[in-house]
Structure formats: C-alpha cells, structure tokens
C-alpha cells in the first residue's frame, strides 16, 4: 500500500501578495495583482503590463552580497520556501537526510543571462560574472534550498514550461510514497518578466495586449479573452509522510491523494483541440486517487485566458465530469495573479488548499461575456461558499505536458 502524503507547510510570493495570508486574501476577494511593468522599460513591447511583484525588495530577505549572487527567480524560490519550511516546523522535526527537494522553473535565470550576455558583447569574455552559470541554471533553486536548510535527501528540478509546478508536486509525492524520503520541499519559481521573454511571448501572440486596462486583461473563459498575462513569483509546499507528520504534531493542511502526468504528443504550443490530453490526465489522476468524477467539489483550472486553452480545457472537463461538470465549482485564479508560467501550478496548489480549508471557492474575475465554447460554472467575479472535500488542480504546458494533482481536505 502507498504511504499517505500530507501538506504541512506552504509559502508563496506572487503579484497579488507576498506570503500565504496576503496572497489568499487577494485571490479569494478577486483583487487583481496585474499592473504596468516597472522592473524594465516595457515601451518597445506590444504588451506593457504583467504580474510584477513590485513591492519585492530582496534586502528585506537577504544580505546584500547574498542577494547579488541570486537571480530573481532563486530569490523568489527561497522566500516561498522559507515561509513553507517555517510554517511546517520540519527543520529539526525530521532527520535532514530524509528531507528532499524538487523545485523547478520554466526558464530559470533569464535576467542574469541577458545581463551577462550584454556584458560579453560589450566588454568581452573576461568581464562576465564568475557566478553567471550557478546563478542561471534552473536547478540552482533546489540546490540553494538544500544548502540553506541542510536537507540532504533526493534533490532535483523539473522543467516543463507551465506544467512545472504540478510535475514538481507529483515527483515529490511519488518520492515519499515509495519511501525514498519522508518529506519533500516541492514547488516552482519564475522571474520571467525580462526583455527576451516579453519579446518572445509577444511575437508568438501569446500575451494579452489590453494595455489600457491591465487588471481586466486576465479573463479566463470570457469571450473577450485575448491571451495570457505574464507574471512572476513562486509557490512552495512541504509534503510529508502522514505518520511522520502526525507523530511530530505537524500542522497538517491537506492531503494529496492523486497525481497523473501525460503528454498530448500533438503540437509544440497548441493543445489538442478536443482536449484529449487534458481529458486523459484528469481521468488518470482521479483513478490514482481512487475517486469518481462526482467526488470532486472544486477544480482549480489551468484557465490561461488564451482562446485555445480555455476552450480545450472546457471540452475536456465536460467529457470527464459529464453532468457533474455543471455542478462542480471551477475557477481560474490566474484571473487574479496572472500566469506565473512554471510557478503557476505551485501557487495554484496553495490557492486550492486554502479554498478547501476555508470552504470558499475563489472567483474567476473579469468574466463578463459568456463564450458558447466555455459554458460551465467558473465562479464568475465573486467568491462562493462551498464545502470542498476533494479538489483538483490542472496544469498544461508548451511541449504538450499535462499534469493534474488531487487534494483532499484533512479533517
């Protein structure tokens, strides 16, 4: 029999709040964190807004020398992890060689690469920062977390675009279930508001260009949706084997009872038009959890606010849930915090757990014009009180990656 896995700590840094309480309040109340970009001059780009964490000052969290040697994405990872680890009281509670880390990112240290590439071209190879490589590699967040906390268990990173967060959660879950570790720090981080990233996503027409109303730009499932909103931040969870957590009196926030991952094997960026990959992955995750579709009370949708995703995800939800698709509560919290790319599913896991704990479904804001292709109950604009025993969180990414996690309320 598989070992049970529970969540004993959570941390988040997002455009709508630093720390779980601030983040959750914004998500629950539908207070958008989207704003005009200020960390770089967005003037040359067709999209000039995003989910920027404008109030983040690294010196509130790190010494000066330390901050300079960490890319923004690693800083976010460490900030989210510190909150999750502190809350779980795992440091000292579980042997360090039984605690591992799976922490990913879609892109890693893009801003470091851009700065140092500029130095290379302007000043030559002897002027690049000796810390360039360890600052930019995607796995450095996982490495830094282990170094700072002394966690000597299995340590790695996942890189799968916007599915990264769920893959990290799933890998951590399996690592504990099979006995390779008793606890895993899992999550993902992204600092993707950079020149090359803005240029790249813009030229492929993936981003909303609603520059005159940034807070209304992320509108999943709404007929007027015109692309996703590029955001930054990180989410972290402490996963722990149930008996270990119970014995040490850890704060148990929720249980993770199912996970599945698959691939569309279809196209580099477009989902299967009929939602085939998404449909299969949700069915596999429900089977892994031993649940029927009607057992699910809340779905934290991938819901990116792109034409293709929201339509395909809706088609998949209808297939998987049948009649129950109209009863189950659905929302895309990306409407509030935007799309954190690799970190998206990690912060959405925090939102799903808080929704379960409080019995409140966070809204999909900016939902004003129904789309005939997206005709389910997405909890438009205002939160809804709703008891939640089981919730799922979807993530789909460029490359055709799909992953779904199933959460259960801990009573």
């Amino acid at each position, binding site marked *: 029999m598989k070992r049970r896995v529970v969540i004993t700590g959570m941390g988040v840094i997002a455009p709508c709040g630093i720390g779980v309480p601030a983040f959750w309040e914004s998500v629950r109340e539908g207070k958008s964190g989207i704003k005009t970009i200020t960390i770089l001059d967005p003037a040359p780009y067709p999209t000039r807004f995003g989910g920027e964490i404008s109030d983040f000052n690294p010196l509130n969290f790190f010494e000066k*020398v*330390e901050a300079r040697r960490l890319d923004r994405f690693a800083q976010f990872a460490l900030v989210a992890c510190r909150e999750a680890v502190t809350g779980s009281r795992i440091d000292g509670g579980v042997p360090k060689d039984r605690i591992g880390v799976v922490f990913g990112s879609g892109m890693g240290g893009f801003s470091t690469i851009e700065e140092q590439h500029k130095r290379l071209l302007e000043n030559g190879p002897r002027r690049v*920062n*000796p810390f360039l490589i360890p600052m930019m590699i995607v796995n450095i967040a996982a490495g830094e977390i282990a170094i700072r906390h002394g966690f000597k268990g299995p340590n790695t990173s996942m890189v799968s675009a916007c599915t990264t967060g769920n893959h990290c959660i799933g890998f951590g879950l399996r690592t504990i279930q099979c006995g390779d570790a008793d606890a895993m720090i899992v999550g993902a981080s992204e600092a993707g508001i950079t020149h090359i990233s803005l240029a790249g996503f813009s030229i492929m027409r993936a981003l909303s260009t609603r520059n005159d109303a940034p807070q209304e730009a992320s509108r999943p499932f709404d007929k007027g949706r015109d692309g996703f909103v590029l955001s930054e931040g990180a989410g972290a969870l402490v996963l722990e084997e149930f008996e270990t957590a119970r014995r040490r009196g850890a704060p148990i926030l929720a249980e993770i009872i199912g996970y599945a991952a698959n691939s569309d094997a279809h196209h580099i960026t477009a989902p299967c038009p009929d939602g085939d990959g998404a449909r299969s992955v949700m069915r596999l995750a429900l089977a892994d959890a031993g649940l029927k579709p009607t057992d699910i009370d809340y779905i934290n949708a991938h819901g990116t606010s792109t034409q293709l995703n929201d339509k395909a995800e809706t088609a998949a939800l209808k297939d998987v849930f049948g009649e129950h698709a109209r009863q189950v509560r659905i929302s895309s919290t990306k409407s509030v915090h935007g799309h954190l790319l690799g970190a998206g599913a990690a912060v959405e896991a925090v939102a799903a757990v808080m929704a379960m704990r409080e019995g409140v479904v966070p809204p999909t804001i900016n939902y004003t014009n129904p789309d005939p292709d997206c005709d389910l109950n997405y909890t438009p604009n205002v939160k809804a009180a709703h008891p939640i025993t089981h919730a799922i969180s979807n993530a789909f990414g460029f490359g055709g990656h799909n992953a779904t996690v199933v959460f259960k309320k801990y009573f």
Partner: protein
Amino acid sequence: MTHDEILQRVRAIVLDRLDVKKDKITETASFLDDLGADSLELTELVLAVEEEFNLKIPDDQIEKLTTVGRVVLFVESCLASSHNS
C-alpha cells in the same frame, strides 16, 4: 595614487563582495583562510580589481595574490610602470 589610497579602494572592493567585517580586511588577511573566499569569489575580486584600476592581471599572477597586501603591491607596481612608460 598612494599606497594607502590603493589599500582603501581594495578594502572597499572586498567589503562589497565578501560577507566579512571591515576590520578583518587587513593587509595581511588571506582571502581564502581569513576572509573565507571561495574560488569563484576570488575570481570575482580579481575582475573587480581590474575594473577599478583599469589594468589586467595575468593569469599566472592571480595565484600569487593571496592576501589583501599582495594585491595592493601588485596594483602599485602596475600603476608605477604605466606612469613610467
């Protein structure tokens, strides 16, 4: 530039890049043993000294620059020879 001016500028570079107290950065302080620098930090210091004083430290000299004082002496000799030429 006097010896003392060079020393103050080298100390500022070290203070800015290593996590150490200012009074530890004496002329005899060893980067590796006394100031806790690792090899990457040492490279970073060398590059910073090159930029600060607009000079190039040959690779075969770098390993000899083990203390703050040796860096100061090296900079002094470079500046002196550039003035002479």
